[in-house]
């Protein structure tokens, strides 16, 4: 079946079964590979995208359920102030190691920062505990979220 999706502000048309997880549509059909597969059962957060600004696990989101909602992926999250701040903080504090989980971490952190510009440790625990990092960068993720909260909205991305 054909579905018209709104991905990162663009209309994209895909022809897949309606129960296809959004993750594979984004990655394999649309070729945007920043969103990652880690578990397929909403346990690891690697596949996190925003749907109308809310974090969602795309591995458990059937494409037919998305409708005209706005999908935002890691490729476009720098267009949101909280996404840009999170990326800048991650770069300044050298959070990444292998990096594979970090798209999902940043998507979760960006959603947290836009909802709670000054998150507490408990807020960070609640918002980020769905994202696994096997390289164990949690100490720096926590620091980076607090650092991002202090950045002004005009943060420029490095590189």
């Amino acid at each position, binding site marked *: 079946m054909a579905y018209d999706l709104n991905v990162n502000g663009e209309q994209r048309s895909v022809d*897949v*079964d309606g129960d296809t997880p959004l993750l*594979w*549509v984004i*990655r*394999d*059909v649309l*070729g*945007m*590979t*920043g969103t*990652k*597969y*880690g*578990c*397929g*059962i*909403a*346990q*690891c957060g*690697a596949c996190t995208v925003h749907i109308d600004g809310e974090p969602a*696990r795309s591995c*458990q989101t059937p494409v037919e359920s998305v409708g005209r909602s706005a999908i935002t*992926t*890691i*490729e476009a999250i*720098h267009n949101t102030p909280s996404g840009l701040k999170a*990326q800048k903080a*991650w*770069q300044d504090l*050298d*959070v*990444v*190691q*292998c*990096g*594979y*989980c*970090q798209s999902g971490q*940043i998507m979760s952190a960006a959603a947290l920062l836009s909802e709670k510009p000054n998150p507490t440790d408990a807020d*960070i*625990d609640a918002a*980020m*505990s*769905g*994202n*696994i*990092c*096997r*390289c*164990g*960068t*949690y*100490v*720096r*993720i*926590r620091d980076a979220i607090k650092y991002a909260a202090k950045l002004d909205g005009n943060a420029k*991305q*490095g*590189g």
Partner: protein
Amino acid sequence: MYMKDFSSEVSSVDTRLSRRSFLRAGVAAGGGLLISINAPMFRAAAADASAANFAPSAFIRIDKTGHVTAVIPQVEIGQGVYTSMPMLIAEELEVEPSQILVEHAPPDDKLYANPKLGFQATGGSTSIAAFYEPFRQAGAVARAMLIAAAAETWGVDASGCRAENGTVIHDASNRSLTYGDLAAKAAALPVPDKVALKDPKDFRIIGRSLKRRDSVDKTTGRTQYSIDFIIPGMKIAVAQASPIIGGKLVGMDERAALTVSAVRKVVRFDDTVAVIADHTGAARKGLAALNPKWEGGAATYSTADLVGDLDKAIAGNAVVATNEGDVKNAVSIAAKTLEARYEAPLLAHATMEPMTCAARITADGCDIWVGTQVIARVQSAVAAVTGFPAEKVRVHNFLMGGAFGRRLETDYAVQAAMIARQVDFPVKVIWTREEDFRHDAFRPHYVDKLSAGPDANGIPTAFSHRVAASSVMARWAPAWFVNGLDPDAVDGAAGPYKFRNQLIEYSRSEPRAGMMTGWWRGVGVTHNSFTVESFVDEMAAAAGKDPVDFRRLLLAQSPRAKAVLDLAAEKAGWGTPMPAGRGRGISVILLFGTYVAQVAEVSVDARGDVRLDRVVCAVDCGRVVNPDGAKAQIEGGIIFGASAALYNAIDIEKGRIVQTNFDTYRVMRIDEAPTIEVYFVDSDQPPTGTGEPGTAAIAGAIGNAVSAAIGKRLRKLPVGRGAINASESRQPYQRL
């Protein structure tokens, strides 16, 4: 990965080789200066590193525009080598590290052998240790040649010239030329015989924290891992090998799979099926519809059988690894004898990126796109199954979404090549998370027996430790499995200690055919640190001594080990009282030349669920090249090891792996992560690795902390879940 025993050989070789014998200079393709580095390998290859047998293991290229490229055999797996290795060159070459591009070397075991391993591999925490001398030497030689070229151009004495920031400057005449201007001329000059290396007190790069160079790409989704690789016409395969250990495929509904839209093909082997489709979603749906049936294999095999086999092995014959003094006699005259049995489970690697490999086979060869720690092994393994000569197998390596030892295996690449052989298009084989768990090369299950004979003061005069486990070495590097002894299984079996009489032994017991055990971050020491450090606490308790004081006595002859012990204890506030329900534990290890001491602080609730509150870690890894990078390795290593020590075990039931995803294999999450403090000992010793020692030390510290908190010795890992009442223990993550 294992290498410890050879490191001493390597350093003795280093001093015998003249500088010149492992450096060569020549003209780079396209003009410019090429320095080839033949870092001495251990054993035969080292003796052979003469001019006649010059086989460079890395290159530095300075082109006519002044660009510097380092071709290195190591690959980036998150540990930061692409950031830290150029620092070594830049320090002596007098350029900024950011000016050096890094290229990963193509597969070639001879050319790109890891000097500490003897073949091409990224593992064993070897990268910095192996290249610390050679890269500085190469940078210094290149600088000297560029200066000589400038001096010749100007007709001045080289001693009046200096190098700075990619430029040679003659202060007296206020002239300067860039490295790009000089590269071609320098390439024609002889290699200087002696070039002095900088005095470390003049280092301006080594020892200074440098930002990772992969941060921007990895925070914007731009980094391409092998799972992201795509070329026109490529299809996706989702593979399933027998979920029963050693089982065979006996049936499937191929038609049902092929009716799923976008499914193109089903490929079958004896013990594996793969569904190939336009996208992963369809391939997964097709595999579910295919509903493959499996039979045979070790259908009744369980963890109890595996442990039973290990117990049988440990009660039977053993191979002696170390026998010093007279343990039996020392025990018989000891005041009393302590004995204990310890156990540690199978563990999964669970890299965030599951095993993935893309392959294309055409008449003229095979392309493999993969993330691997052993690129040359992949090449030869694929050559063997496809029948192509090695040079027709082109292996393209990718940044990896975690490795931890898993990508020292070639199984997933071989599988991809076999699937690709059945189709006439490129195919990317993606393992599901479930497949990744079921067919991991698990960390071995260990059973240990220890005994100690303390004298009247509680100081052990005799120590014996027998380790029973499968042998990773026998399968992975049979040449290092000598006389039935797996040197990795007993690495650290006496900790960093030396007992007057000590006996270390190994008993081998393999799991059922169809299962594989493999290297896991921190290797043998990861399990021995738990076993030995827990047992040392038992000895301290029997002697009525504080665990840190007791270790100080044992380490009187080991100043570096004692220094990290003291540093960790001091920073942690060892000895200050802890409230009820909380505990503090210490461990000290030596792994790959690095000394680590850790203090763990835990809280244990009424069910026995453990919270790891704080870890204080002292590290002596010689000179620290990139302090913040080293710190990140230690932090991550602690989390990785703590996750396993607290929660993880792979169980087998009815021939199947029980834990197949993160709902049942609970890994540490941010809300469970401890605060971590890392302290480095100031040192001018040559650098050693930091990738694995942080992981290896933590199980001992946690085990001791939990045992202290609950007032009962725990001798079996994991220790974090329901030590008091498992049935009420917290379930794994269940949000969303």
